[in-house]
């Protein structure tokens, strides 16, 4: 019995990444120059990106329908590769300074990316689950790799315990869905739902558990509580990686599972997502106000942003999906960029309190202004990319007759302004403890420049990308 759809070409991006991961472990044994690992990793990411080209525009179910190649998968893979490349860049200096075991660090980062790929590119619950676990297991280790810091290890164990418990709930949900529909493949599940399985009460329970498991991944209220602790404790590049990449992967899985697999229950889950969205953005924004540590502030900000993205699921339309995709793309760049500045400040000898940003505008005007632009984008002030992200979600909500949700979004973006401005004020209107200009390593400058250009460009000329994500959303 042969496997149907054995196609190595379309699986090449994943294969290249796995090979890169293994290569990094081996390289680590033979070289003292740990920078080489970053370059090799970047080469692998680039190769994987190039390997995406043959699959572009095709829609195919390969390997016994376990892997789905389509434009949605392609979109998310590009986002993940971008995030990974940027994470590698911002890690370079960080890993050297803190004597983190470089081989394992970079290899695990690549393996986590493979997991994200799988979450976005499968219509089978088993593969989605395995992808999710691959991300999770690699992340537990990555979060804890700053071993000499008690907070890192603490973040790791907390993440692990909460994540495993949630995994169990998620799996319970999968088992119930499997039991009522007789399949693990999302299209078949949708068919079974349409054929009448949707009336089974147990399916609702299954849906609820699936939702809980994935809501945990995207840190939606009240499944978010692990997030601030984990993001604060982890090595900063990993915070950036998880906050953007893993969260985007969670949304990819949410889109697949709910829009492809469970459209028959849309009445129920749209309501739940709308409620989660409101709670999540409000909780994130309000709690962020009283934070004093920059990473924690970014964590709550991430929670709030996840709340905005959930609006796209609450409306459950093509427009909503497109808006989500656009937002996730934009969010990845502006957040990694902000973290690049945070890493710069932390590397310069200051800590990770907000007060450590004092006088950054004098010590390094470029990075200070870059952070201003990321923050304006996060608030949603035009002409930055974040504005268009919010505008898209906003009009999707209006178009779906959920004006109240749109209004809540706007109010939330107002609440969010003060805490970002607290940082901006610290940078511009407070005197630095030392006037010494901050020396920026080339890797951080590159990462900042790239994310900055994307953040501005996606705000100035959003059209091409938006029409692309419309297309992608249409393919779902």
């Amino acid at each position, binding site marked *: 019995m042969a496997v149907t759809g054995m196609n190595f070409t379309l699986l090449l991006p994943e294969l290249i990444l796995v090979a890169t991961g293994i290569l990094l472990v081996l390289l680590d044994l033979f070289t003292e120059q740990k920078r080489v690992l970053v370059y090799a990793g970047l080469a692998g990411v680039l190769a994987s990106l190039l390997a995406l080209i043959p699959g572009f525009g095709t829609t195919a179910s390969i390997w016994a329908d*376990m892997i789905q190649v389509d434009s949605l998968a392609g979109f998310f893979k590009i986002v993940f590769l971008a995030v990974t490349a940027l994470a590698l860049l911002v890690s370079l200096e960080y890993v050297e300074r803190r004597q983190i075991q470089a081989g394992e660090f970079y290899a*695990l980062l690549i393996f986590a990316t493979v997991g994200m790929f799988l979450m976005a590119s499968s219509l089978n619950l*088993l*593969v989605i689950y395995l992808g999710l*676990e691959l991300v999770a297991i690699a992340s537990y280790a990555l979060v804890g790799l700053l071993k*000499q810091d008690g907070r890192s290890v603490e973040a790791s164990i907390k993440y692990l315990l909460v994540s495993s418990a949630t995994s169990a709930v998620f799996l319970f949900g999968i088992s119930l869905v499997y039991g009522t529909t007789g399949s693990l493949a999302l299209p078949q599940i949708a068919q079974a739902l349409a054929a009448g399985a949707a009336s089974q009460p147990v399916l609702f329970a299954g849906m609820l558990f699936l939702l809980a498991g994935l809501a945990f991944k995207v840190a939606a209220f009240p499944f978010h509580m692990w997030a601030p602790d984990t993001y604060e404790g982890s090595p900063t590049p990993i915070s950036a990686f998880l906050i953007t990449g893993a969260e985007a992967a969670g949304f990819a899985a949410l889109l697949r599972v709910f829009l492809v697999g469970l459209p028959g229950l849309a009445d129920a889950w749209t309501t739940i997502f709308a409620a989660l969205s409101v709670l999540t953005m409000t909780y994130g924004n309000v709690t962020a106000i009283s934070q004093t540590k920059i990473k924690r502030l970014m964590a709550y900000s991430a929670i709030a942003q996840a709340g905005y993205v959930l609006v796209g699921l609450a409306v459950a339309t093509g427009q909503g999906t497109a808006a989500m995709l656009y937002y996730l793309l934009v969010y990845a760049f502006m957040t990694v960029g902000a973290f690049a500045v945070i890493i710069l400040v932390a590397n310069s000898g200051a800590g990770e309190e907000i007060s450590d940003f004092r006088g950054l505008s004098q010590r390094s005007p470029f990075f200070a202004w870059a952070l201003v632009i990321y923050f304006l984008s996060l608030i949603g002030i035009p002409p930055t990319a974040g504005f268009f992200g919010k505008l898209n979600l906003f009009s999707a909500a209006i178009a779906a007759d959920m004006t109240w949700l749109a209004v809540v979004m706007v109010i939330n973006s107002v609440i969010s302004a003060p805490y970002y401005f607290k940082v901006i004020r610290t940078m511009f209107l407070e005197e630095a403890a030392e006037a010494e200009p901050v020396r920026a390593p080339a890797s951080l400058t590159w990462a900042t420049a790239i994310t900055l250009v994307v953040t501005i460009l996606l705000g100035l000329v959003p059209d091409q990308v938006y029409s692309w994500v419309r297309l992608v959303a249409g393919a779902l």
Partner: protein
Amino acid sequence: MSLDLISFIVLGIITLVSGYLVVASANLMHAALFLGLSFVGVAGIYLVLGAEFLAAAQILIYVGAITTLIVFGIMVSNLQDLKAGGRGVWARVVRNLASFRRGLVPLVAAAGFAILMLVIYRQSLWPAEAPPASGSNLATVGRLLFTEYVVPFEIASVILLAAVLGAVALSRRDDQPPAGSTGQAAPAAERKEGR
């Protein structure tokens, strides 16, 4: 009552009781052993349900690997149980109930889960008869694993690789521990030796 059902009930009781003891037993090592016993019970149920391959895997992976790993972990790290005294299960239950975080709320949540699920199961329709299985389960599962499920199989191998890497990276002692950590680590080590 068929033999199947009787064995299911017996095995179920074993599983549940030892599962309860995992939570309730006073000694951490005992808990680990009860965990193993619970796994064995589950393996038995797999056999009853005609999943021979899985029963074998359960014994190998769960009992053989996971339980052993946990026991080994407990011994290596010389972990002591946290429950002071350990004067009987009920005394602890009463004491625990008094605490909000560990008391009534978790109990209600956990029991609520079971009760609600049972209610939901009652409301749903289930097939009354299982279709007869044809051929050997071992062969079927083995074949599927390397044909239809070959991609997940490979992913699992990547997961294991990542786990090994992670575990090694975490547990490897650094040659030169950074200055900050020695101050905290040393007293703990001394305390251990002193005991």
